[in-house]
């Protein structure tokens, strides 16, 4: 019977940690896009993926097993905190997404200004023209 207990512990460990690993893989994909891609639009796509992965990590920290969404329902009393999810990470990430879109607009403004001056979006060609 001890082997089944080991299997149960291993199953719980995987169930509690798999979302962390997949989020880390997503973050590394975004970082790869920022570092190794030469086109500036591809770099911007990498930034969007990186930001989304960080938001996903915060939301996954706020989740509980067997809890409902943070809108008050009279069937579930609010005095027991295990009934509701933690609303604090949701609020922080709600503001972070909107700020992310506004700063993406700033990034596009810089990108259009760069194109109007150098007539290209490739990083190496811009560096050649600067030399």
């Amino acid at each position: 019977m001890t082997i089944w207990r080991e299997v149960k512990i291993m199953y719980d460990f995987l169930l509690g940690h798999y979302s962390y690993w997949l989020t880390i893989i997503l973050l590394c994909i975004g970082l790869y896009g920022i570092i190794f891609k030469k086109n500036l639009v591809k770099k911007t796509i990498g930034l969007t993926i990186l930001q989304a992965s960080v938001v996903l990590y915060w939301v996954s920290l706020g989740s509980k097993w067997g809890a409902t969404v943070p809108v008050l329902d009279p069937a579930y009393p609010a005095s027991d905190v295990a009934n509701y999810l933690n609303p604090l990470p949701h609020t922080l990430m709600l503001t972070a997404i909107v700020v992310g879109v506004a700063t993406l607009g700033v990034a596009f403004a810089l990108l259009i200004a760069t194109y109007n001056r150098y007539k290209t979006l490739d990083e190496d060609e811009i560096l050649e023209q600067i030399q």
Partner: protein
Amino acid sequence: MVAFAGLLIYGSLDLPYRGDADNLMHSQRSITDTVVAGNYFIQEAYNDANTPNMVTVVLGDYRSIDTLGEQVVVFTAGLICLLILRRYRPI
């Protein structure tokens, strides 16, 4: 990049289980014996503001100065777009 991912995954092995209701951030009292903020928001949101949606209460009442700063950031981003992309007329 693969080494960086491996380092992060090795660091994540000691994190608490996801969704466990006995975590430190989901517990009733913190380790310094003060009230944890999320649980206070869950218990007292309807009594304080008559509103069932807790996210709205936290956004608009408890952390409203945070939201004010966020709105100023968005406004500044819009002004920066206006200043970069505007063409001045040649005189």
